[in-house]
């Protein structure tokens, strides 16, 4: 059967390419149920050994708690900073709006490896290295552009006429914002939250530069584990992460659509 106007041979080729694209994400699932002390396929024994071992790994668990708290803090601050900023940049009329928008989204243009080094070299001077506030600021640098862009886009598609109508009927500006603008922006805000949380929780390159022995994040510790040891523990951790991510994606998809959120947010 042809899908749309694609021939059978072409459909087969695309099927193989999709298999290649999804292979690494799918393949951690069978390996996570291996009980072997090494990485091999097919595993010699199957079970839940490494899922059970995860909660007993103190380093990974502590990093996991740090990452959860960090992502929650960063998400809350991203919204607190991006919502008023987006409102000012989209709804208020003043000079230099486009310029400021470019400045605030500019961190996305820098590769993480460069931004990570740049932040390290400044943080080392002001004692922010391996501190919680330091990690929060570094993560905000990358989550704010996403949050700002998603919320500004959501706001930009709302017709100002409805707000104008509320104002004309006598509502004070802040009431207009709270009762009219904010509820209409909600899908954008939900998407920005989910995106900020995911970006912060998955952030690894910048964090690698600024974590310390006493304060580290989950992706950093996964990276270090994979770099030095070869057993299926990280496959079990990956499976849990992927399943959790699917949950967040469903929230994102219901509010504005994944493709739109990523397409709007991820620029070169």
């Amino acid at each position, binding site marked *: 059967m042809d899908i*749309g106007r694609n021939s059978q041979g072409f459909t087969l080729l695309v099927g193989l390419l999709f298999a290649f694209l999804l292979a*690494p994400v799918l393949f951690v699932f069978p390996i996570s149920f291996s009980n072997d002390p*090494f990485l091999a396929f097919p595993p010699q024994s199957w079970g839940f050994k490494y899922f059970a071992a995860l909660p007993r790994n103190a380093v990974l668990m502590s990093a996991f708690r740090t990452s959860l708290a960090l992502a929650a803090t960063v998400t809350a601050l991203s919204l607190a900073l991006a919502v008023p900023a987006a409102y000012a940049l989209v709804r208020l009329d003043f000079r230099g709006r486009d310029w400021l928008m470019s400045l605030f989204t*500019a961190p996305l243009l820098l590769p993480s*490896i460069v931004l990570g080094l740049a932040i390290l070299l400044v943080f080392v001077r002001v004692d922010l290295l391996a501190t919680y506030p330091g990690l929060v600021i570094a993560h905000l640098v990358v989550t704010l552009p996403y949050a700002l862009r998603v919320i500004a886009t959501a706001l930009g598609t709302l017709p100002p006429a409805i707000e104008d109508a509320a104002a004309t009927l006598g509502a004070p500006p802040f009431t207009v914002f709270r009762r009219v603008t904010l509820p209409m922006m909600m899908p954008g805000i939900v998407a920005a939250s989910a995106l900020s949380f995911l970006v912060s929780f998955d952030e690894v390159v910048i964090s690698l530069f600024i974590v310390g022995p006493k304060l580290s994040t989950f992706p950093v510790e996964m990276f270090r584990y994979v770099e030095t040891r070869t057993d299926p523990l990280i496959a079990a951790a*990956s499976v849990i992460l992927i399943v959790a991510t699917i949950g967040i994606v469903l929230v994102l998809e219901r509010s504005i659509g994944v*493709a739109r959120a990523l397409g709007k947010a991820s620029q070169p």
Partner: protein
Amino acid sequence: MTVATFSDAPAATRQRPVAPLAAAMLLPIAIVNAIGFLAPVANLFRMSFNEATGGGGLREAVTFANYLAFVMDPFYLELVTRSIGMSLAITLLTLVASYPIALFIHRAPAQWKSLLTIVTVSPLLVSAVVRTYGWMLILGDRGLVNGLLTSAGVIHEPLRLVNNTTGVVIGLVEILMPYMVLSLMAGFGRLDRTYEEAAQSLGAMPWTAFRRVVVPLTLPGIALGCLLCFVLAVSSFITPKLLGGGRVFLLATEIYDQAIVILNWPLAATMSIVILAIFGLALVAYTRVVRLLD
């Protein structure tokens, strides 16, 4: 018409003096931007002119020695050419692997389109560490590929697919594919199936119709996707570090080693500026290509 009248009329909210209000709303984000972006980048630029005195020592100076090393020292020169060459090869392979997917989605009926788009972009939401780890499981000496080939009796010695350039290229092509597909789809707007059918009904073979009609129409998307994937490949760190196993030396992995292991911050800063310069060159090339296409 009523709506138009409302939005055309200068509304009460937009008549007040907005500058102080806007400043208050933008101040917090500006502070984070200054501390976490502007100051670090300015400092990074300054650092690239400092002098490393060995063993992590640092002397404030204005020297071009770090930049000269890139021109004089064959190791660093090769680092740059290898990074650029590998990234170009990865970009090309990503294009070849992504183009059929983008074309397929473009031609698919609406209900398939959104589902396939979600499937294509979903790997972007999975951490690069996890996806790279997945490739280590697939390509490792006792991984999926070697396991299947050995049990099928095709090979007796495992193929060396990780801890070398092969692994880095395979991993990065897969990691960059969603970006390429999205860029291609964004550029497929001008492509209508009827053009292809017209070419074929006029006697063109399917391959000729593809080469002479489809590809030229989708060149803007190809250029955009290639720019995006090239800059992402040049600056990628996690995948070359893990799948290269410390044996594939690229600019990004070298920045990390110089900054964290060797503690030569001026050189690490200079390498960062070199990466940004490569970005600039890629952007110039892209602009030229786009102007040529118009």
